[in-house]
């Protein structure tokens, strides 16, 4: 078991009582601990370029970008929801494209430019999409919000925000169990329509 997973389990042990999302993530961690190690993990050095800063890390081949960000770099803004590519909570940008960090191996991210929710604000000012989510109250519990915002920023940059239906379709990879969708839609429309930095 890697150091990353030890710290993850410790974290989960503390947070298990706090709600359903933590329980979902726990299932994955527990399943992993029940597997006897088949072979000595081969550690890999990788340099991750995250939010404009380079970080040298040593990871197992199986370490996902999500775990490397959260456990290795302590960038805990990116969330682990389903850990299976179904919920979008772990959405980050890699080389400008929105992707799922739970289905990305960290060892395959050498020389790639990664942006997380922590990298959106500049000079102490929130990104317009972050500000719009606040203004429109685009969240309740907030767990899915970093992924929603990363996806929304990409959606506007891709030029997909041409109608309400188009925004809904192109946000379909981000699930909000609180059901804040109408407010998320309003926030995205604010940014897409404003012509401001997106």
């Amino acid at each position, binding site marked *: 078991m890697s150091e990353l997973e030890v710290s993850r389990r410790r974290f989960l042990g503390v947070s298990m009582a706090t709600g359903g999302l933590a329980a979902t993530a726990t299932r*994955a961690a527990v*399943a*992993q601990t029940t*597997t006897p*190690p*088949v*072979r000595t*993990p*081969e550690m*890999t050095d990788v340099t991750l370029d995250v939010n404009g800063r380079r970080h040298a890390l040593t990871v*197992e*081949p*199986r370490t*996902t970008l999500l775990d490397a960000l959260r456990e290795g770099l302590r960038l805990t803004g990116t969330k682990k929801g389903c*850990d*299976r*590519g179904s919920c*979008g909570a772990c*959405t980050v940008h890699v080389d400008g*494209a*929105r*992707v*799922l960090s739970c*289905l*990305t*191996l960290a*060892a*395959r991210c050498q020389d790639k430019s990664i942006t997380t929710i922590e990298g959106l604000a500049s000079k102490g000012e929130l990104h317009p999409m972050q500000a719009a989510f606040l203004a429109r109250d685009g969240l309740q519990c907030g767990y899915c919000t970093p992924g929603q915002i990363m*996806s929304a920023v*990409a*959606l506007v940059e*891709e030029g997909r925000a041409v109608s309400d239906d188009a925004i*809904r*379709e*192109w946000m*379909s*990879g*981000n699930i909000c169990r609180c059901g804040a969708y109408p407010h998320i839609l309003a926030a995205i429309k604010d940014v897409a329509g404003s012509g401001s930095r997106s």
Partner: protein
Amino acid sequence: MQNFTLADTASLDAALAAAQQTDTKFIAGGTDLLQLMKDEVERPQHLVDLDGLPFDQVTTSDDGARIGALVKMSDLADNPDLRRRYPVIAEALLASASPQVRNMATIGGNLLQRTRCGYFRDPGVAACNKRRPGSGCSAILGFNRLHAVLGGSDYCIATHPSDLAVALSALDAAVELRGSDGVRSVPINELYLLPGDTPERETVLNPGEIITAVLVPPPATGERSHYLKLRDRASFEFALVSVAVAVAVDDGRIRSARIAVGGVGTKPWRLPNVEAALVGLPVNRDALVEAAAHAAEGARPTRENAFKIPLMQRAVARALATVTA
């Protein structure tokens, strides 16, 4: 997820050589493989990374299209030449997965993704002939609302999940395969195997062989194409029923029709009886509905999925009406 070695490869030959080890899988986009590995449905000891191999180009001409297997789904869906010549491919891609998954997943990987049968994807279920040959099928007498009504056997009724494969089936595309024995081309309609009594064998690929390209013949003169996908929610969901149509019309009558359906078969399913019934028919609603009724021929429902048969007939009629409008 069990640990593994991860091998970068500088060339196709190096990748094919590295894949000679036992318990080795290729990884491209990784969106399906990593899900399967996290759930320990797949437990490879070695992964061979295909990233960087020169199979990431799309070329289109009057002779057809050549799509590199490492092209991302999102890039192919956005390709203007492809969208113009083969709307059914772009529509099938955009109806697949989510924007994030499409930015990661590759064309070759999409064609080789595994079934979404919940029994296959849960190693806590003992009986699954596809995952554990000889263990039985939990779906045949279990929850089978999402399962196949065409092509099933007493061993497996899992559907093939790819939308792209359905579109390529209607277009009579082929895949280019490369292995240690060289290169060969296989029609997509011969790529997938029926489950029979060996549902663990899903394609004609040999061990260590990879898809390097998809080859699409040019559309017939005047032919139009379209993809219709029906599902339990509006987006980011696999098909209950999907239809790929490519139809040419002359003077108000159908000259040729190519139709494949998804979500209903154990592999992408062509409908030759519907295609034959359509030739020469006038383009009107009654004629299309009558021809589409042939889609039910040979269908065998299980306890929960009989609804797919009339849904398929109506979906075929609707897709035909749309493409000939």
